[in-house]
């Protein structure tokens, strides 16, 4: 090493979060004696301003050239501290974090063991940081155009928000018509506003917008490139493929309705007058509420949570069905005033603006509410007897009365939940984003970054992130638009620095790496007989480095040396502890 390695070690208390389970003072004291460690301190909240100021000051006063902070998960504060290093004039990558909260103090119960574990993790970090190299930030230009996948309300709203700022938008819709799920809705809950008006207006605006190019009946197979510089091939009408270039991608592919055929108890497909909420919505759009036989139904039952909140189908709540069901009940009572409407529900989730009020109103209109257990005992639809005076009967355990009851029904509406499209995974892969357990796209942070994804420049909005209603979808769409407009406004964005790097001197040109890279960041250069890395495409996974047989490729910030020395550092500390114990 050219210069002395001078490491500063900081152990965070995190209030009592860490200090309660880890003897931070002891840790700091003992590890302060490790080679290259020139100072070692503890502080209540390292992430706080004073905590960071302390690091900055120490770097400047003690010529530290490397810093280790033992605190929470690097996923939370690595950036914070890197920034502090940068503020102190040190390269931000001369930093390593030891996760002694999420992976020590919060998961262990023996203080001594936890302290030991913390020590070894920090020792690993200290050992590793000595091999860190300065990495420089780089930026790429942002192509001001945006690609939006999905022409539902979310996709269209995002498109308009961006296009209105004068920027180009490519809107790709799988179906022949824009509008998505909104196409099937007559009125929106809770205020019974016209969805038709809303839809017509937005579609017209989108179609006529000079900055929006709509591709109907199209699916994007693969998106290449990286933030600021994506491209894809797309068929323009029936013409041949054209290449689109764009700087950001918004995925707004929505969800689809659950197919209730799998729930035997509801006899969907068996009885013609058991219909899904979508089919009922169509009926409302047409304006005629009637049974398959063409009669006006007298008894209408609406069953909630179909395919939702049940381990056998989907565990999650589909969020909008309760309100849609209340809307239906109101529409029914309005259209057929003397009908009997029954709502079979599990929990009434009327939580939005004006929603609880709609629930009250629905009750006042004389709709009968019956509660069932959506987990253990679903209501059962059976054929009614001759004397029942109706076509079907629903048998259920009614929780609020504690009785077994039967409900006469001429028409049964199943409030089907929402679930991911079959091709969600494929679409996700084409733009490089992943799914969570329920096949919704996973956001960068469930709370503080609900529209961004772990892939820079790719955003998820609307239902494809999880079920939601129209205003929430629009909010998300606009939120993504904000981020994109921000980057467009700044014209450039910083890109990944921890990419792979191919050493020309070592590469033998075997091309093993080329095959491995999922981002085509590696290519073979015949003239020199070597592989080269396009660092703008590289996302830094490091698989190529592991595949390289000759050690020519290294993953910046995750080099063999760094990881091996981390292993060494932490194992040595464990053994040292063991020896001192025996």
């Amino acid at each position, binding site marked *: 090493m050219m210069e002395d390695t001078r490491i500063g070690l900081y152990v965070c208390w995190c209030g009592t979060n860490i200090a309660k389970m880890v003897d931070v003072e002891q840790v700091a004291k003992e590890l302060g004696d490790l080679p290259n460690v020139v100072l070692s301190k503890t502080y209540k909240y390292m992430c706080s301003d004073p905590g960071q100021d302390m690091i900055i000051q120490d770097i400047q006063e003690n010529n530290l050239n490397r810093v280790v902070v033992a605190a929470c*998960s*690097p*996923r939370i504060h690595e950036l914070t501290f890197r920034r502090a290093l940068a503020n102190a004039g040190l390269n931000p990558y001369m930093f390593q974090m030891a*996760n002694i*909260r*999420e*992976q*020590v103090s*919060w*998961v*262990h*119960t*023996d203080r001594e*063991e*936890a302290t*030991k*574990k913390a020590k*070894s*993790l920090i020792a*690993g970090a200290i050992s590793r940081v000595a091999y860190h190299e300065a990495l420089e930030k780089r930026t790429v230009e942002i192509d001001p155009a945006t690609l939006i996948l999905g022409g539902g309300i979310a996709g269209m709203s995002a498109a308009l928000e961006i296009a209105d700022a004068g920027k180009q938008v490519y809107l790709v819709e799988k179906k022949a018509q824009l509008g998505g799920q909104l196409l099937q809705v007559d009125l929106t809950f809770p205020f019974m506003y016209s969805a038709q008006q809303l839809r017509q207006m937005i579609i017209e605006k989108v179609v006529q917008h000079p900055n929006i190019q709509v591709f109907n009946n199209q699916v994007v197979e693969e998106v290449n490139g990286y933030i600021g510089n994506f491209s894809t091939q797309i068929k323009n009408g029936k013409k041949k493929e054209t290449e689109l270039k764009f700087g950001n991608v918004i995925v707004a592919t929505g969800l689809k309705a659950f197919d209730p055929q799998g729930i035997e108890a509801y006899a969907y497909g068996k009885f013609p007058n058991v219909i899904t909420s979508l089919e009922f919505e169509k009926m409302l759009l047409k304006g005629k509420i009637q049974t398959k036989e063409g009669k006006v139904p007298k008894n209408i039952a609406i069953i909630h949570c179909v395919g939702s909140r049940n381990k056998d189908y989907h565990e999650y709540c589909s969020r909008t069905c309760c309100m849609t069901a209340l809307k239906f009940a109101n529409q029914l009572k309005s259209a057929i005033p003397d009908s009997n409407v029954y709502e079979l529900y599990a929990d009434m989730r009327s939580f939005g603006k004006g929603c609880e009020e709609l629930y009250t109103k629905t009750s006042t209109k004389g709709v009968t509410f019956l509660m069932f257990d959506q987990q253990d005992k679903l209501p059962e639809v059976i054929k009614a007897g001759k004397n029942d005076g109706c076509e079907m009967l629903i048998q259920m355990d009614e929780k609020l009365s504690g009785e077994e009851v039967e409900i006469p029904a001429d028409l049964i509406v199943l409030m089907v939940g929402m679930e991911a499209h079959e091709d969600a*995974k494929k679409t996700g*892969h084409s733009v*490089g984003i*992943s*799914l*969570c*357990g329920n096949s919704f796209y*996973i956001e960068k942070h469930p709370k503080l970054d609900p529209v961004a994804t*772990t892939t820079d420049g790719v955003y998820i909005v609307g239902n494809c992130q999880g079920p939601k209603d129209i205003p929430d979808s629009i909010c998300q769409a606009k939120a993504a638009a904000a981020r994109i407009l921000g980057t467009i406004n700044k014209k450039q964005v910083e890109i990944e620095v*921890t990419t792979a790097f191919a050493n020309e001197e070592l590469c033998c040109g075997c091309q093993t790496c080329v095959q*491995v890279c*999922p*981002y085509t960041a590696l290519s073979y250069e015949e003239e020199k007989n070597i592989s080269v890395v396009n660092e703008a495409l590289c*996302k*830094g*996974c*490091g*698989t190529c*480095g*592991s*595949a390289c047989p000759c050690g020519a490729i290294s*993953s910046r910030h*995750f080099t*063999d040396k760094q*990881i*091996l020395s*981390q*292993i*060494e550092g*932490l*194992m*040595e500390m*464990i*053994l040292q502890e*063991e020896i001192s*114990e*025996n």
Partner: protein
Amino acid sequence: MSFNPKIVSFLCNWCSYTGADLAGTSRMKYASNIRIIRVMCSGRVEPTFVLKAFQQGADGVLICGCHPGDCHYHEGNYNCLRRFKLMQKFIDQMGIEKDRMKLKWISASEGKDFAKLVDQFTEEIREFGPCKVKEIVETLS
């Protein structure tokens, strides 16, 4: 003193490390024998690391990545799986019980599964007893 297994673990940043963090934020308790090393992708895990861990005295090595098909980098976890299988065969030849290394898929939401996995793996390694690699290497040099 009773045998306290030493386990080195490589976790991918996106699913498994996050899953481990989730176990933490959810305060799920698990055995403290594990030492986690973060890599960006399980595809980064090289046999060298595993060998190094054993050489340095680890009794078991746990590798976790995203579930098949969920890899943040599309296929890194498959690469890991392939290497892992070959690696297992190799260490078996080298006289190290092949189950001293384990590859499991842990997603970002599976904090609970992670905690369970650690406990279980720790017990499995405890059954195996100490790994002798370090001892051998030390007597040799």
